[in-house]
């Protein structure tokens, strides 16, 4: 029995913090993942895609996203999609899933009931799917509890599909908590989980697939789907399939000058096309005014326009204006006086000091601009 395990499509994720020009592309890429998943399924001879929850980003994603998603799936008529409600799009009366049940094309099914679903016989072996749809954003009970006692035809493969966390992260009782050893307890051949956006193996029969299209920084492995091959009592064969388009990279650069900047930029996410790179850079270090301006120019005026989105955080890149910096602004005269005064204000620290630092940097930039204009 071969199938594709995926989850957390979160179609319709708004990306409201991302600049307008990148936002649309990032949204569209999530829908594109459906096509890529179908292609991967087809290519690997596994025309069954199990989506372990959070198909949509919200319980009411809106008609546009909803229609687009169904249409994309419908277009892949030879691939069967089984969709599970997750905590982002929980099952509830008259919500999304009620409508979906009426609108789904033949190759798509919504798993809205905690009842075994016959997956038919693949490779001569009968398989039964045990879905654990979530009916609330947060439910205290383990939604997979019923797997243990679920009756299936003798000899049939039992495959679990659920959405939730397998461990608590402190604080209040974690919602939708799935017993970490559910696969063993319920005699599952494989337990396909969703919720965590990174791909994680819990045990040999329990996996999180992670989201097929990355959507945030700080995930270890993301942008993949899992090709699962289960048979009898053998350990399932699980293969990672690259699906995602965008690469979300978060790096912290401690700079001591502008010299190694080009090398760092060149070494950024090797093998990833720049237009597919979403990058958050946290700059830190102690640099001269000239260096800071050079760094910012290189990053803001060049790199930022090359990548999909550059989230540059330069708050910790501390400037220490040198005498050279100041004399570059002007050796003497009014500009020099102003620069010296601003540097003094910087030294006093606080909000006023930070503002003075920015003003000094601006003065430096403006001075250079005036110089260029004068030379031109």
């Amino acid at each position, binding site marked *: 029995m071969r199938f594709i395990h995926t989850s957390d499509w979160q179609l*319709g*994720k*708004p*990306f*409201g*913090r*991302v*600049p307008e020009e990148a936002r649309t592309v990032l949204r569209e890429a999530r829908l594109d993942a459906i096509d890529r998943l179908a292609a991967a399924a087809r290519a690997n001879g596994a025309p069954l895609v199990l989506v372990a929850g959070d198909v*949509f*980003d*919200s*319980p*009411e*994603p*809106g*008609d*546009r*996203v*909803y229609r687009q998603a169904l249409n994309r799936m419908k277009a892949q008529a030879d691939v069967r999609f089984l969709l599970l409600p997750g905590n982002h799009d929980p099952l*509830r*009366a*008259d*919500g*999304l899933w009620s*409508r979906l049940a009426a609108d789904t094309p033949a190759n798509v099914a919504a798993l809205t009931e905690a009842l075994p679903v016959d997956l038919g016989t693949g490779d001569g072996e009968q398989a039964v799917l045990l879905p654990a749809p979530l009916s609330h954003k947060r439910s205290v009970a383990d939604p997979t509890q019923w797997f243990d006692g679920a009756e299936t035809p003798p000899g049939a493969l039992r495959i679990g599909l659920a959405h939730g966390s397998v461990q608590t992260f402190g604080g209040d009782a974690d919602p939708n908590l799935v017993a970490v050893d559910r696969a063993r307890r319920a005699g599952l051949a494989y337990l396909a989980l969703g919720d965590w956006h990174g791909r994680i193996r819990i045990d040999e029969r329990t996996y999180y697939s992670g989201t097929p299209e990355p959507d945030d920084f700080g995930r270890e492995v993301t942008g993949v789907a899992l090709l699962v091959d289960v048979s009898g009592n053998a350990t399932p064969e699980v293969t990672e399939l690259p699906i995602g388009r965008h690469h979300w990279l978060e790096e912290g650069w401690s700079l001591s000058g502008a010299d190694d900047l080009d090398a760092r930029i060149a070494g950024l996410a090797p093998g990833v096309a720049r237009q597919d790179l979403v990058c958050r850079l946290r700059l830190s270090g102690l640099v001269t005014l000239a260096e800071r301006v050079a760094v910012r120019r290189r990053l803001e005026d060049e790199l930022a326009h090359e990548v999909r989105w550059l989230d540059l955080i330069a708050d910790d890149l501390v400037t220490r204006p040198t005498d050279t910096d100041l004399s570059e602004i*002007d*050796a*003497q*005269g*009014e*500009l*020099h*006086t*102003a620069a010296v*005064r*601003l540097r003094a*204000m910087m030294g006093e620290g606080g909000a006023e000091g930070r*503002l*003075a630092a*920015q*003003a*000094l940097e*601006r*003065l430096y930039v*403006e*001075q250079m*601009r*005036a*110089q260029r*204009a*004068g030379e031109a």
Partner: protein
Amino acid sequence: MRVRRLRIENFRKFRAPVVVDGFTDGLNLVCEPNETGKSTVLDALRAALFERHSAKSDRIRSFRPQGDEVAPSVELAFDVNGEEWRLTKRFLLSPSVTLEGPEGRFASDAAEEKLQGLLGFARAGNRGADDDSRGALGLLWVEQGQSFLLGSPGETARRTLEEALAGEIGAVTGGRRAKAVVAQVEKALEDFLTPGGKPTKRLKQAMEAAEAARLAATERARELEQFEGVLEQLEYKRNERRRLVRDIEDPQTDADLKKLDEDIARARAAGQALEIATLAVREQSARRSALEERRAGREKLATQLQAAEAKVAGATEAVSTHAEVISRVRSSERAAALALEAARTALREAETRRDQSVAERAAAERRFALAAAFARLDRAEAHAANIRERETRIAASRMDAAAVDRLRQLEDAESAARAQAEAGAATLTVTLEPGAPQILLDGTPLTEGAIRLSRPRTLAIPGVGTIAFAPPPSGEPALARLRAARRDLADFLAGVGHDTPQAARTAGRARAIDEAELLGLRTRLKAECPADAALGIPAGLDPLRGALAGVERPFPEAKDAAFPAADVETPYRAARAAETEAAARREAALESLKAGELKEVALAAALERAEAERARLAADLAADRAALADEDLAAALEDARAAEARALVDCDTARRAAEGLDADGFIRRRDTLRKKRDTLQSQLPELAGAVARLEEQARTLGGEGPASRKAAADEEAEAAAAAHARLKSEADTLALLLKVLKEAQQDAARRYLAPVTRRIEPYVRRLLPSASLSFGEDLKPQLLTRAGREEAAEMLSKGTQEQIAILTRLAFADLLIDKGQPASLVLDDALVFADDDRFDTMMEILSEASGRMQVLVLSCRASAYRAMAATRLSIRPA
């Protein structure tokens, strides 16, 4: 720079060429009368240096002499840094320029550029040279009427000065670059803040966008909440419908209803049987009780008949007994009537006797009153006659009280006159011897005593003759008064009709007595005529007279003739009492009679009624017995009682059967169940409608994707707020930078102005002792400090302003010369407002300055400059 020679042709008033030459390094003076063309010379000099040869502006055209299409041209020879240059410029017609000097010959634009470089001014704009383009030289060359303007130097001139100043303090101001930076920052800031510091343009947009995004997020949240509410409500309504359907379709209800229907039918049948049995009992009871009543009625009738017969007997007895009583009453009534008649007759007689006595007494009283009235009338008449008599006398007498007084006066006057007359007369004392012959005095026998001889008197002594005495004439006036007094007295007496005063006095007294008496008489008269109540006569004599006129005066009778005594009254009262008593007795007898008669009638009627009752009862009893004999009645009653007992037993059986089957209770329970089911069913459509509505609402609202929209709106609001914060930070940055830059500029200005201030100070002190001048950033004289008091330069007098303007330029020129810049000072008709002292001081300063620079003064006031040591130049034909 030093001007050496100037040649002008076809320039304004100079059509023919003129030359001004012989310029020295020091002070040069062109002193010509008005209209000679001094200002034209200065204009030509300026045109040569500053106007582009190719320019065709209005000003250039104005260089042409009036109405001539000629080419104004100027030739200028000058030194710069000890090198000689020669400039030729021709305007409008075949315009040209050449500049020859140690570096060679330049023409056209090259010449213009070289000239600009040499003298440090800018290329003139399209509209010709101006203060800005002329640079420092323009500043130092003061046109007619411009000398006193305390203007700010033009941009070029200022820059030149500033550069000179900057060199002085050994620092570069940053000059053009600093200005550019400030301008850039200002411009950048304009995108964020207004000059007043209010958000504008980008910052304002970002602020508004952030606010709009925030509001949108709130709105989205509200929409989502609404949607969630719809879903919740929908779920609730669905559950309600489910419960409702379950209740409606409950099978227990059906079973209950069926059983209840059967129970009701059973209960109804039992009820009907009981009803029939009850009716039978009622029928039998009625029959039995009817027979019983009939028997009882018959017995009662018999008893009543016996009673009626006894009553008839009693009534007959009562009627006969009463007949005796009433005859007795009748006879006593008759006796009382007779007694009353007698008492009445006696009373009438007593009354008559009493009335007679009263009338007699009244007549006697009247007679007595009349007698008294007549007596009073008699007395009154006497008084009236007396009064009349006295009144007549008073009327006749003239001696009233006034006349008495008058008489006394007249007598007094006569006595006084006589005494006076006699006082002056001789007294003849007569003493007669007894038996002396009768002597006649004026015919009257003489008696002893003294005789006053106040008038001629004659003593006749019979026998002797007469002795005549004549009073002396001196006594005549007294005599005359005496005579007059006597005459008055005699006249008065004649008037009152009396002969002597004595008689008159007597008459006066009599009249007084009469008057006094009269008063008394009248009072008495009035007293005699009072009002007489007994006779009904009012007060007064005349009423009295009238009342008694027709009445006969009664005979005088014994006043004590006795009135009838009280014995008539006593018999009358006794008769009266007897009559009242007799009347009362009669009344009582009548009452008794009447009561007796009434009773008599009543007793007769009662007898009659009792008789009738008895007859009726006897008839009724006889009739009833005739219909049903007594023994037959007893048999029927026995039979009826047996039937009733049987019916009662039957009824009791039926009642026991019906007990425990409450049809109404069953029906109530059945109806309640039905009603409940109906109610539930009636709720179903409404609920279904609500569910459908909510479903539709959920579909519509869900289609808009409220949750997504809210999430997106939240993120966008956050992003917009962040963008706004970024722009705000940038605006703050720029504002701070601009503030710091401006402060730096002001500091710099303060520093580099110091040299100018320092240079002008000695000049100012010479003109205005202990005064000092300070400049603004734009190199414009600003404040004059005199004796610790600050005065705005613009508020100074025109003369002082002009002098300060010239001194400022002198200081600028010094500054430029110190920096090796070409400078020469040209003053056209300056110092026109200066007084003599100031003028001399200014001349001294200029003379000193001319040791450092070339100074050219153009003036029309020859006398003012006469004493001045200067090279005098003239405008002469070439």
